[in-house]
Structure formats: structure tokens, C-alpha cells
């Protein structure tokens, strides 16, 4: 583990009675970067963040945050902020009181910034939290997450119930504040295209397993879409694995895994083909579906195997 490593997870597993929430997860978060923790609902994102912040307990494996075990570790925990998607607040608190509480616990808390954010999100500071709408509740969590300026900050689906304007306000503030006060940020989300431009590194988790863990640039560059007449495209992409295919009358747009060199790009232009970027969302969806597909085909194989066995028996 080098100095810049903030989080190190090795072989982490979490089992509930009959569900495996996390399965042999290993990863590393480094200092002053923005990570995207992406995946479908129920993939294990919240479970993972809960364990990293010692709110939840692992069944197996090891977790090191700032080089130490975070459980009941005041020195580690005081550098972390994790407002969960379903964060509970004392029933009789107002947002203003929740912020005053946060000021007690986060050493880098910026009250002016918190007030400015609350104003931008049009958050009623003196209304009781239990009377807030879902979006306003999310805004309380966002304000605490941003204004706490914790060295390691987790945002767990922070935009639930927020309209598009408020979501963009959040993204803008996040980017701006990150530039002025660099820290490690982990943003869990399933609105992948919306957050894609913020993220430097992407971890995709599916059914408790990590299926993608790479730099955002690497992932974006790992595929390209080729559009044009069907037969020309088919000839051009010969040999490349196909991710998606879209047909429009007699033109097609095919996304392939792989990089094109400058010569190939020139050739495509000469053939009248249009090259484009594949969106992060499409790549993540594809990865999730193929992870599932691999599992299904394994199941199918097992099924066929069993079928063959039973035939054996009847014979």
C-alpha cells in the first residue's frame, strides 16, 4: 500500500441469510480522485460503502481505510463522511440543526458554504426534517456531504427526488469545490451518463462482484461505434467483438470493442463511415448484461448437463 492509497479492500465478502451481497471484492481508492461506484439497484454498492465506513460488518476479507481498520476507529472515522441514501435524521431536527450537528463533528466544516448550498437547493432551513419532500431530504444529505469537506466522502445515490436543475447544481458544486479542496470522493449512482464526465475512475459492481475497475478514459476509449451502410460496416469491423448493433433502414451503427489506429480511422473516413464514441452508460450496461449472460449460460449448461444425466438414468 503506498502513501496515496486511501482505501484498500481485499477479498471482501458479505453474506446475509440467503443473499450474497458482496463476493470477493478487492479494490483500491487513491487520494484526491473522484470515483464512480456504478451498478444496478441491489448490486451491493451501499453494502460496500457501509462496510468501508464501519457502519456495516464484513463476513470475510479485510478493509483498510487510511491504513487502518475503520471499526470503532475514531482517528479514521473523523476523516470520513458517508450520508446514506436512506439516511435517518432525528425526527424533531430542522435542516439548520442538522448542519449545526455536522459542524460539531467535521473538522473542515464550512458553514458559509453550507448556507450557500442550502440557498441554491431552496432548502427550507427551519422546517422539520420529517416534513421535507424526498428531494429536499436528498439536498440535506448533499449539503452535509459537500460542506463537511471530509478527506474521504461518499455520496450514495445522492440525487433521489431531485429535479434535473438541482442535480446539475450538485454536479457543478461538486466539481468546483473539488478543484478548490481536493479530496477522495466516491459517488454511487445509476444515472451513469449524467455523472460520466465527473468521474476519473470507475468501478462497476454487479451482484456483489466487481465486473469493471478502470480509469474512465480507458473505458471510454475501449470501444468505438461505426455507422454507415450495412455491408460496408460489416466488412470494416470484421474480426472485432460486437457490443451493440442498431439498424436504421439500410444503415447500421455497430459498437465494437477495440481501438482503431490512425490508419484505420482514415480508411473509415474514405469509406464514408462515421466513427463515434460509445457512451459510458452503454459500456456499463453491456458489461452488466454480459456478466449476467455468462452466468445464465453457465446455468443453462448445468441444466443441459442435468438433462443429459436424467436421460442417462431413464435409459
Amino acid at each position, binding site marked *: 500500500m503506498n502513501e496515496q492509497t486511501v482505501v484498500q479492500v481485499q477479498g471482501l465478502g458479505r453474506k446475509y441469510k440467503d443473499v450474497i451481497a458482496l463476493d470477493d471484492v478487492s479494490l483500491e481508492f487513491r487520494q484526491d480522485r473522484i470515483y464512480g461506484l456504478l451498478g444496478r439497484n441491489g448490486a451491493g454498492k451501499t453494502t460496500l460503502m*457501509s462496510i468501508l*465506513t464501519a*457502519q*456495516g*460488518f464484513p463476513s470475510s476479507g479485510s478493509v483498510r481505510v487510511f491504513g487502518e481498520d475503520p471499526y*470503532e*476507529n*475514531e482517528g479514521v*472515522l*473523523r*476523516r*470520513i*463522511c*458517508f*450520508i*446514506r441514501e436512506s*439516511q*435517518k*435524521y*432525528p*425526527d*424533531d*431536527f430542522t435542516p439548520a*440543526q*442538522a448542519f*449545526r*450537528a*455536522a459542524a*460539531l*463533528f*467535521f473538522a473542515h466544516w464550512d458553514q458559509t458554504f453550507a448556507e450557500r448550498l442550502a440557498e441554491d437547493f431552496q432548502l427550507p432551513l427551519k422546517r422539520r426534517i420529517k416534513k421535507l419532500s424526498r428531494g429536499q431530504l436528498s439536498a440535506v444529505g448533499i449539503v*452535509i456531504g459537500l460542506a463537511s469537506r*471530509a478527506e474521504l466522502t461518499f455520496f450514495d445515490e445522492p440525487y433521489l427526488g431531485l429535479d434535473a436543475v438541482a442535480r446539475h447544481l450538485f454536479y457543478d458544486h461538486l466539481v468546483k469545490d473539488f478543484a478548490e479542496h481536493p479530496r477522495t470522493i466516491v459517488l454511487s449512482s445509476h444515472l451513469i451518463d449524467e455523472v460520466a464526465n465527473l468521474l476519473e475512475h470507475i468501478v462497476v459492481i454487479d451482484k456483489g462482484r466487481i465486473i469493471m475497475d478502470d480509469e474512465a478514459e480507458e473505458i471510454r476509449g475501449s470501444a468505438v461505434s461505426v455507422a454507415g451502410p450495412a455491408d460496408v460496416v460489416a466488412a470494416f469491423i470484421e474480426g472485432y467483438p460486437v457490443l451493440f448493433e442498431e439498424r436504421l433502414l439500410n444503415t447500421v451503427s455497430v459498437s465494437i470493442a477495440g481501438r482503431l489506429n490512425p490508419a484505420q480511422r482514415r480508411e473509415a473516413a474514405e469509406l464514408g463511415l462515421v466513427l463515434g464514441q460509445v457512451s459510458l452508460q452503454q459500456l456499463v450496461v453491456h458489461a452488466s448484461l454480459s456478466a449476467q449472460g455468462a452466468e445464465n449460460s453457465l446455468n443453462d449448461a448445468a441444466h443441459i448437463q442435468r438433462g443429459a444425466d436424467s436421460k442417462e438414468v431413464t435409459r
Partner: protein
Amino acid sequence: MNRVLAVSRMQLINKWTFLGIPAIILGGAFALCLAIFTIIPTEPKYGGGAPFAPLWYFFALGIQSLTLTFPFSLGMSVTRRAYFLGTYVTFSAVALGMAVIYAIGTQVELATQGWGMGGYFFRVPFLFDGPWWQSLAVSFIITLFFFTVGFWAATIYKRWGVTGTLVVSIGLALLVVGAIFLITWGGFWGDVLGFFVHISVLGLAGILLLLVAAMGAGAFLTIRRAVP
């Protein structure tokens, strides 16, 4: 800043929760009792359990502290240990405040012969018969006891859900039935009743304090493994 004290201060951010509402309940009960005392001609008159009206609220606060401020505190990156200690600092401070009010009220009632009309609200017979420091200790322990019962029960629920709460309740009921069975079977009823008749106030408070310590320790161990 010390995280334990920070938790304790957080519990007091909303002044109504721990201070305002108990003050209103106590003040209301006091005013009501005095009004009734002026109607009743006989002397002396006692408020009965009236001064303890806020205790039921404290029981509920014990539960609420856990269900709401525990998840919130973990969100504020507080250790479970700091949360527990800080909450108990607040409980103790409020219990001490209540105790001071009871002790002073009792002495004032003694000095003024029940507000000049033989009406005693604070001075509960038996419990507050002794000197002022005894009233102080006894009311402090009783208040802390009510907080702890609520808090402890809530930790059981938080950690093991409805099943756990049921198991513990049934277990406690079985213990009581078992004790009654043993007492009856052994013919100890005379001794048991004698014990309660002769026990001093301080003795009773001591038993409550032991229960507070046992439930507090249980709550602490449970919280150490609880998730928000």
C-alpha cells in the same frame, strides 16, 4: 473537540427534546396539582405519582435516542462507543437537573408546610422522606432508570428486531414466573414481603442503580455490533 461531548451537545441541539418538553410536563403537572390542592379541604395532600409525569416521556426519549440519533450519529462518523458515552452524558445531565428540582422542591415544601396549605407535590412519601441529598440521589437514579429501560429495550429491537424483542420479553416473563414459583414452592413469601417492607429508600435506589448498570452494559455491548 472531544467526540463524546460533541455527541452529548448534539442531543441538546434541539432544546425542546430534552429540556423544553420535560419542563412543560413537570410544570403542567405541578400547576394542576396545586389547583386541585386548593379545592381539597383535608390536610396533608399528596400529589402521588404526579411529579414523576416526565419519567414516561424520558422512557420514550430513551427509545427515540436510539432509533433516530444512533443512525444519524453514525452518519456523522461517530464511533459507537462515543455515541453511547455521549448519550449517557446527556441522560445523566438531564437526570441530575431533574434531581435538583425534586430535591429543592421537596425542601421548599417542607419549609413552607406544603405551600401554606399542606399540599405536597414534590415530597412523595417514603421516597423523599430523608435529607435533601438522599432525595437528590434517589430521584437521579429513578430518572436514569427510566431512560435506561427505554434505551436498552430499543437496542434489543435495533439489533435483533421483533423476534429478539419477543424472545427477551418472554424470557423476562419466564424469569418472573420462575421466581414466583420458587418463592411459593419454598414458602418464602413472608421473607420477600418483609424485604420490601423493611428496605430503606437508599437500598431500593441501590437495586435500581444495579439494574441501570446491567442494562447500560447490555445496551453498550449490543450497540457495538448494531447497524444503523
